[in-house]
């Protein structure tokens, strides 16, 4: 069981390394490397204290999610290579049930040395213990003296007797309570009468003891390594023609649908790989807005991109991998039985258009909390349900972004719309106007906007054309803007 966090670092020349995490108001050490521990630093110590004790300490923030992910990867490796019953426990332990698989590696000791060797190569200082029960093995690995402890069958209770009570993973208050009674070791705890122990410290304490002794089942929840569904097709003769590639793709898609259906999954991203005879690999990837097992749909999406494949001197193998697949339950199809008309799902159209145009060019517009009109709309994913805008002021249907300068403006300051202006070289005479609608700069985004003000007017010219025009500044104080006029949008 590797203990994470205390990476075995090549010591010379490098400062001692610790990782830190926030605990309430304090920042405390999460882990310390062997060099740091030799200097008296220990997890749980305040960072300021550690810094004072060891100047030049290399302090880095702990990354619990990253560590958990690494642990899960190691457990996945274990599940693939050593035993199918492997599970990460807590944040720094992996439990392997090697019953029945150790002999494949030449016995328990050879297997454990192999695991230790791998961990060393990964830069992990691992401790391994093998015992009759998972609880005993965990206690020995975490609190035992040696790196590798092989506890003979039937010896678990005796081997763990000298370990501190904390080895049973009891809650800290229980450990402290036991310490007050003078019970410090697992052996001493085991010798106590059961009934008073249960009354005083709860049934969980007894359960921990029973799990250690094997008197209570302690099943592990094995990690099932997720394999991306993958189908492959090798050709007897290299394929060169577009028809051949399309044909093979269709067959791969059929096989992929079967593989996905077996696991109750729907593809979200698919990668089609073509291996050429010169070992070059041609890849195309497609994405789907919703998990799908629709063969025709997937074939069509791939078909849109198939022309990107350059067969060169020929393709000898093709593989289709569902690089991302999500659970897809069966859905009720509207149709003849339910009497509803069959409306094709929007997701299929979204996929086709996104494959044609690219992911970023198919979107919805939704409200964004912002005073400035050009920032008030945000792009959302095509199947999202973006929020609406508040319906208070009239807004133009077309926005000029960036706003265009307007010159030769004649306007009453500070709060009347312009009487005349010129835009794109054409003069306009304003007949009616509405405003001003004052918009303030967003000082929290940009210091330059702190005092900035815009006054928006909706104006109509003699012909009935309607414009959205604004003035920089409030018309009085030049700090709020330079009083220049700008065209920002067009009303219908």
């Amino acid at each position: 069981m590797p203990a994470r966090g205390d990476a075995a670092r090549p010591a010379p020349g490098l400062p001692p390394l610790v990782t830190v995490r926030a605990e309430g108001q304090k920042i405390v050490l999460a882990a310390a490397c062997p060099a740091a521990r030799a200097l008296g630093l220990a997890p749980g110590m305040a960072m300021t204290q550690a810094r004072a004790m060891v100047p030049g300490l290399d302090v880095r923030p702990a990354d619990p999610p990253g560590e958990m992910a690494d642990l899960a990867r190691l457990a996945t490796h274990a599940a693939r290579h050593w035993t199918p019953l492997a599970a990460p426990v807590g944040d720094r332990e992996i439990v392997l049930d090697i019953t029945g698989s150790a002999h494949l590696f030449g016995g328990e000791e050879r297997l454990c040395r192999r695991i230790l060797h791998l961990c060393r190569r990964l830069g992990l200082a691992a401790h391994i213990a093998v015992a009759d029960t998972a609880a005993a093995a965990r206690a020995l690995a975490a609190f035992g003296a040696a790196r590798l402890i092989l506890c003979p069958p039937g010896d678990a209770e005796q081997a763990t007797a000298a370990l501190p009570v904390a080895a049973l993973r009891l809650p800290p208050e229980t450990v402290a309570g036991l310490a007050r009674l003078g019970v410090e070791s697992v052996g001493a705890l085991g010798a106590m009468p059961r009934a008073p122990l249960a009354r005083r410290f709860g049934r969980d304490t007894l359960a921990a003891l029973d799990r250690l002794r094997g008197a209570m089942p302690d099943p592990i929840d094995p990690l099932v390594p997720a394999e991306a569904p993958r189908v492959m097709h090798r050709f007897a003769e290299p394929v060169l023609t577009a028809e051949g590639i399309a044909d093979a793709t269709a067959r791969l898609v059929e096989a992929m649908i079967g593989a996905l259906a077996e696991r109750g999954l729907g593809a979200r991203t698919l990668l089609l790989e073509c291996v050429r005879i010169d070992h070059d690999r041609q890849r195309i990837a497609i994405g789907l807005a919703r998990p799908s097992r629709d063969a025709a749909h997937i074939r069509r999406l791939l078909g849109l991109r198939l022309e990107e494949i350059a067969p060169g001197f020929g393709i000898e193998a093709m593989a289709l991998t569902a690089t991302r697949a999500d659970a897809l339950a069966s859905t009720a199809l509207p149709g003849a039985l339910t009497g509803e008309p069959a409306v094709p799902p929007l997701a299929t159209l979204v996929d086709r258009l996104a494959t044609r145009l690219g992911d970023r060019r198919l979107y919805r517009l939704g409200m964004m909390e912002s005073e400035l009109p050009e920032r008030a709309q945000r792009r959302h994913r095509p199947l999202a349900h973006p929020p609406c805008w508040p319906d208070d002021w009239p807004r133009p249907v077309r926005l000029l972004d960036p706003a265009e300068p307007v010159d030769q403006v004649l306007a009453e300051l500070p709060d009347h719309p312009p009487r005349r202006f010129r835009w794109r070289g054409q003069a306009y005479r304003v007949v009616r106007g509405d405003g001003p609608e004052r918009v303030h700069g967003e000082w929290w985004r940009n210091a330059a906007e702190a005092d900035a003000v815009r006054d928006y007017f909706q104006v109509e010219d003699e012909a009935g054309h309607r414009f959205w025009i604004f003035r920089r500044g409030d018309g009085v104080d030049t700090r709020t803007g330079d009083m220049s006029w700008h065209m920002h949008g067009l009303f219908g």
Partner: protein
Amino acid sequence: MSVSAAQSRRIAALRAEIGAITASGREAGAVLPFGADAIDARLVGGGLAAAALHEASGGAALADDAAATLFLAGIAARRAREMGEGAVVLWAFGRAELYGPGLQQAGLAPERLLLAEAGDDAAVLAVMEEGLRHGGLAAVVGEVRLAGMTATRRLQLAAEERGVTALLLRRPRARDRDALAEPSAATTRWRVGAMPSARLADPVGDAGIGRARWQLDLLRQRGGEPCSWIVEGTDAEGRLALPAGFRDGPAAPARPADSVSPIVAGAVRAAA
């Protein structure tokens, strides 16, 4: 001139035959009325055919183009509303200039609108056709500068086949080029232009802006006559309205601005 019963029967049969040819494949009854009798009465079938291509343009001025945009947005919004919850309108364009809050005020709220930034005219037309062929959309709107007879014919056929409304906005190209001069297979072609809006009743005379007013020209409709109206622009539900009364006269020039209220302080500024 009197027509015998046999002749009138013959004429009716011929009319039906012509109708069957011109309306081939069109779903009978799938019509989207404007809700304004004066307009609907002049349209074949009492409204816009839902499974067909309709074109609009605003001409050279950008503000007129915005009016045409709103006109089509209103049609799409009403079609989506008619189709009920979850109906979506696809809007394809070359460059992102649309403003979401403005479209929402024409009845196209974010949950009703899917936007596709296609890049150029050819891509817009391809996206439109893909959207029409999908068959599940309320309407497909496309903005193009150029679309020939073949392209519009494809759209018209796709719209007829799948029963989806196709709306084509012809955007201004050059000042002196009429966007609607090109031939097209569209069922109806419209020109939308801004008109001076009605002055709001206000004793001070410096009241704000009321509802927009447009000159709406139906330049062409298949199986019908062209026509013109003066209407009030789309409201929050995408509906047009006919002005209550032409108090100012529909095409009378607006009162000069200076007579409304004197200029107290003027400022002339050069462009930054």
